[in-house]
């Protein structure tokens, strides 16, 4: 690697970030809000360590809570072996890191479910002009709808349909996951359809001459050809899903990073702006990590390892 490449690969991004932080640090204190001056990077980092401390403290409390229960129960048993004891669940406030985990689980659930629906549907639509004509108007109609418009409908339907005394999943989780699912469907269906419909004529002829069965045709020819487009759709979907989820959590007060941001905003303490900025950066980092994860999977599944992927 020559000097120029070295500069472009390592020094340039570093300088860019440094410049951004410098402008932020200098500019932020000049804006004074009702919650105090806008925090600079240094203050935001302090809030971050504060959140870590809070998380550890909460974990400690949880451990102690269960310890106390166990001790109490053991004592009761010792006095009267027939005594009925029970373990209560710890119900402390979810910390920042709990919320991150909730958001990731929710987005992945909605995304994976959407993939199971959208990829087969896209393959069928790509292979059959009739199916394509049948579903295309619906896709075109629903694609431009902001998934947040779905949120009230999803919430109402889930409340009405998902009734159970001992629900496996929280209603809020089902709401968020379904909203994510709805917004993941369209880009995946469309890209899969395009990928499948554009399989080279030559390969289709090979399949015809060999009289491959429908299933073998899909497995051996359609899927490998369409993999790049399927992944393009999946990556688009996951990116949108992550953005939508945060908004949905804010709007519907479903647990997750969005709720954390909203709670801090309502809280209005002098720490709030800093904490929200921590959340913004974390949201960005997770979104980036999700995309890289998809890219990794695409490289793994794609037969053409020489293809430039970015």
């Amino acid at each position, binding site marked *: 690697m020559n000097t120029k490449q070295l500069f472009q690969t390592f020094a340039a991004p570093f300088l860019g970030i440094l410049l951004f932080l410098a402008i932020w640090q200098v500019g932020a204190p000049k804006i004074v809000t009702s919650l105090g001056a806008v925090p600079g990077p240094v203050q935001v980092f302090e809030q971050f360590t504060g959140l870590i401390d809070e998380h550890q403290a909460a974990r400690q409390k949880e451990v102690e809570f269960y310890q106390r229960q166990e001790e109490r129960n053991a004592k009761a048993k010792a006095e009267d072996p027939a005594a009925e004891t029970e373990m209560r669940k710890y119900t402390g406030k979810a910390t920042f890191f709990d919320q991150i985990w909730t958001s990731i689980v929710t987005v992945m659930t909605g995304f994976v479910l959407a993939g199971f629906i959208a990829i087969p549907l896209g393959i069928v639509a790509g292979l059959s002009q009739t199916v394509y004509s049948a579903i295309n108007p619906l896709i075109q109609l629903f694609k431009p709808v902001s998934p947040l418009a779905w949120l009230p409908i999803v919430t109402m339907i889930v409340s009405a349909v998902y009734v159970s005394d001992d629900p496996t999943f929280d209603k809020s989780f089902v709401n968020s996951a379904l909203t994510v699912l709805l917004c993941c469907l369209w880009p995946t269906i469309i890209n899969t359809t395009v990928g499948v419909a554009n399989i080279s004529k030559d390969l289709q002829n090979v399949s*015809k*001459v*060999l*009289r491959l069965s429908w299933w073998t045709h899909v497995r051996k020819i359609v899927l*490998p050809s369409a993999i790049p487009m399927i992944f393009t759709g999946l990556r688009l979907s996951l990116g949108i899903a992550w953005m939508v989820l945060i908004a949905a959590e804010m709007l519907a007060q479903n647990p997750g990073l969005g709720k954390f941001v909203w709670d801090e905003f309502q809280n209005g303490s002098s720490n709030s702006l800093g904490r929200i900025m921590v959340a913004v950066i974390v949201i960005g980092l997770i979104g980036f990590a999700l995309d890289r994860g998809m890219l990794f999977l695409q490289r793994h599944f794609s*037969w*053409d390892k*020489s293809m430039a992927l970015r």
Partner: protein
Amino acid sequence: MTNKNHPDHLLISQVSIDFPTPKGPYRALDKVNLRIEKGEFVSIIGHSGCGKSTVLNIVAGLYQATEGGVILDGREVNEPGPERAVVFQNHSLLPWLTAYENVELAVKQVFKGRKTKAEMKEWIEHNLTLVHMDHAMHKRPDEISGGMKQRVGIARALAMEPQVLLLDEPFGALDALTRAHLQDSMMEIQATLGNTVIMITHDVDEAVLLSDRIVMMSNGPAATVGEILQVNLPRPRNRVEMAEMPEYIRCRHAVLSFLYERHGRKEAATPKARVNASKTDEESEPARGNVVELKTLSAKAA
């Protein structure tokens, strides 16, 4: 359509095909007739866009004739199938499979339940050896040269044990030296297996060298069989020795004179219709015919 007493191995009977265009149907082929015997090597030659690939596609079952039909061993052809294996011009190997796996896909499909796993493996390797590809069996198409890809394509077709082998300009996209090598391989395989072969080509030397008969097609629209030339050259044929033989020179001259004197392509009378109607033909054939023809014409003028 079954007729057990029919002596013909492959019969192309009164085949016509219309392609729909915005201006109404375009007749690409008109009443093409051809009888081919078992073990015969027949070339179809003609200018770009004359519909010679269309004839092959109809025999393959990839196109349906508008009128007439194709009968193979007493049965009418109406869909593609491995008994009429095609070697495509652009090799058409699945790029995500190795040479071995490409042939395996065909073998598994054709010999399902008839061969054991070990027999299949042996058969795949046998066919790859036949085309001299045993040294690169486990390479993917993007790791081997164009000539090698075409060899694998031929191995895949041979492995289906076809009744008729259809070659759609199999060597058209290769450089002259590689092409010569593959032509030699093809003759060698033909001598060993005695397949019935139909080959589409626009190369006069290739046609004379490989064929028992050369079918010369007139120009479209409504292209049809113009003349059929019997090539009475002894086999095995050697390209260097043959170049001197009077029969070789006679055949070569006969084809050239058909193509460039009697059926010289009238310069694009209806180019639009042609492009619309026989797109596959135009795409798969470089406009070599035109160039040669212009050269001949200018030579004549001088």
